[in-house]
């Protein structure tokens, strides 16, 4: 059974349209995926696809004007807001983006000790600092005194000492040197190998593929594909969704091919498939309705044109689909 399961998660926020009228704008919708114990799942997507909000929704720390719906299950048990409140920091831990998530006026050792659930915070904090190669005097430093790599290790320490089984890392690598990136990601792999479920939210596909087991691709607030990490290879032909392929091919070493157009803004989503306006495979039926997530070749995809290897030799799905309509 997966440790963490997300079903039809939707997040929307309320904003004032005018002096009197309020409107609800959806930012995330129909997000589905699961993370098993021992597994690193990467959530990738361009900025504006709702990645950080996803992390905040999973922890129940969305801003006040935001609301979430859908189901989040932990060990099969559905989590409501109250349950989520009890779990965060204990069972589910966040590894935040940057040093700005540390209290600027509190020594970092003390901040790590705040996360300890056992009865000897000092021992736990010192052990984890030692483990991550942080000098003992680091605990008396203030956040502004840490280098980028040290800050990363301190932030990971908070999750490690909490003993949480689910670790959600929100953009753990930007602004780091290549060496620090590798080290930061290795820590997440170690957590997974120790039996945790690790979710790494990032736009750095290339680096995260070195540790991820599976990849969830987010586009315009929804999951368009869930693929084994091994499928991100070669020209990307093993990927199921045209957006995943385009994302892969946009990387410098894979052709540097840009995707025309821009990701639609929340509230301005097209009525059919969200990617249809930018997709070179789009057909008229793509604009009718939003495709459901379906299983194709050991992965899942939200595209009516995706087909399994068997279909390549026979008729393709899109022909079959247009015949049906």
């Amino acid at each position: 059974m997966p440790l963490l399961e997300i079903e039809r998660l939707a997040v929307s926020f309320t904003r004032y349209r005018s002096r009197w009228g309020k409107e609800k704008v959806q930012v995330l919708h129909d997000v589905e995926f699961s993370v098993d114990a021992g597994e690193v799942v990467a959530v990738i997507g361009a900025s504006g696809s709702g990645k950080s909000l996803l992390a905040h929704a999973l922890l129940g720390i969305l801003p006040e004007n935001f609301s979430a719906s859908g189901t989040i299950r932990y060990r099969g048990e559905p989590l409501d807001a109250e349950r989520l409140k009890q779990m965060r920091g204990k069972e589910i831990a966040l590894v935040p983006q940057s040093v700005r998530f540390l209290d600027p006026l509190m020594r970092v050792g003390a901040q790590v000790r705040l996360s300890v659930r056992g009865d000897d915070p000092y021992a736990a904090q010192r052990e984890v600092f030692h483990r991550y190669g942080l000098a003992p005097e680091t605990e008396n430093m203030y956040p502004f005194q840490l280098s980028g790599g040290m800050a990363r290790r301190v932030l990971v320490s908070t999750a490690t000492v909490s003993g949480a089984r689910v670790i959600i890392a929100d953009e753990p690598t930007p602004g780091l040197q290549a060496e620090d990136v590798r080290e930061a990601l290795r820590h997440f792999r170690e957590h997974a190998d120790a039996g945790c479920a690790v979710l790494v939210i990032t736009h750095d596909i290339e680096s995260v593929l070195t540790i991820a087991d599976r990849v969830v691709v987010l586009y315009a607030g929804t999951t368009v594909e869930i693929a084994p990490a091994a499928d991100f290879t070669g020209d990307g032909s093993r990927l199921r969704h045209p957006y995943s392929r385009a994302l892969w091919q946009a990387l410098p070493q894979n052709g540097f091919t840009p995707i025309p157009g821009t990701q639609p803004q929340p509230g301005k989503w097209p009525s059919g498939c969200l990617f249809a306006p930018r997709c070179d495979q789009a057909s008229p039926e793509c604009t009718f309705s939003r495709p459901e997530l379906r299983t194709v070749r050991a992965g899942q995809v939200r595209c009516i044109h995706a087909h399994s290897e068997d279909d390549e030799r026979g008729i393709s799905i899109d022909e079959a689909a247009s015949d049906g309509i």
Partner: protein
Amino acid sequence: MYGLRRTGAFFVRKAARLVTLLIAVSILSFSLVSLSPIDPVQAYIGADLMRVGAEQRENIAAYWGLDAPPPERYLRWASAVVRGDLGTSMIYREPVAKVIQEQFFHSLLLMLAAWLMSGVIGFLAGSLAAMKKDSWFDRFIVWYCYTLAATPAFWLGLVLMVVFSVWLGWFPVGMGVPAGVLAEQVTWLDKLEHLVLPAITLSIVGIAPIALHTRQKLIEVLSSDYVLFARARGETPLSIYRRHGLRNIAFPALTLQFASFSELFGGTVLVEHVFSYPGLGEAMVEAGLRGDVPLLLGIVLFSTVFVFIGNAIADFIYRVIDPRLREAQAS
């Protein structure tokens, strides 16, 4: 800790600034007094004007050196001040330094009470308002602060006096001690009774800036990334306030409170006048109205030092307590 040498350097720098500031303030105020229609001789003679002839007046002026040009008079006065002689007050017929010392002690009690009250109440009100942002309590605090920020202290003092002293009769109408009682028989309780209304007036006005500032700062802190992370770690709102909120808003609030010495002094002048409370503010008003130039200039210099010390303390707190400034300089 903060290096001893750095602390020394800080004070030397501040002292140098104070000296230059005092020189500037003394020249400016001396020039203003010289240009004003105040005639020191007339102020000195007062009601006896009719009995003093023109010749006598010229003699007095010559005796005081008033016939010399202003720059010379300034230098003579300034060199006396440097030697510690502020001159003699015409109203009190006592050395200015002694008058200031006595009057300041009365004011000190009033200012200290108002300063502490406004600081504590303002900080609490601002904190609560930010914690309950957009609630009716928050709206009330903000409304209260804006209203009072626009209320002149003397007017508020008059209103309080009318309500609590005249109508309700809870407090004496004014003065620092009961009238008609020998100085030896005045008790602490009497003094306290006379202190209450002026202190409340002064602190009510002082609450607004500190409350608004604290509220704004705490709202900022509560929407920061580190508070978001604290929530993600499972900290409750109360522990977030205690661990992260207080830490991040206390120093700015304390700084603001020390930096507000000028408003405090200005407010004291008005409030003491309204309540006829015998303090430095009242002495300043009297000195101004009755042309007591030595006392007026003495109080101006004294208030400069007073406000400067407040600002220097504020500055010092920031440097010593905020680790970002302290350890960045040390390393």
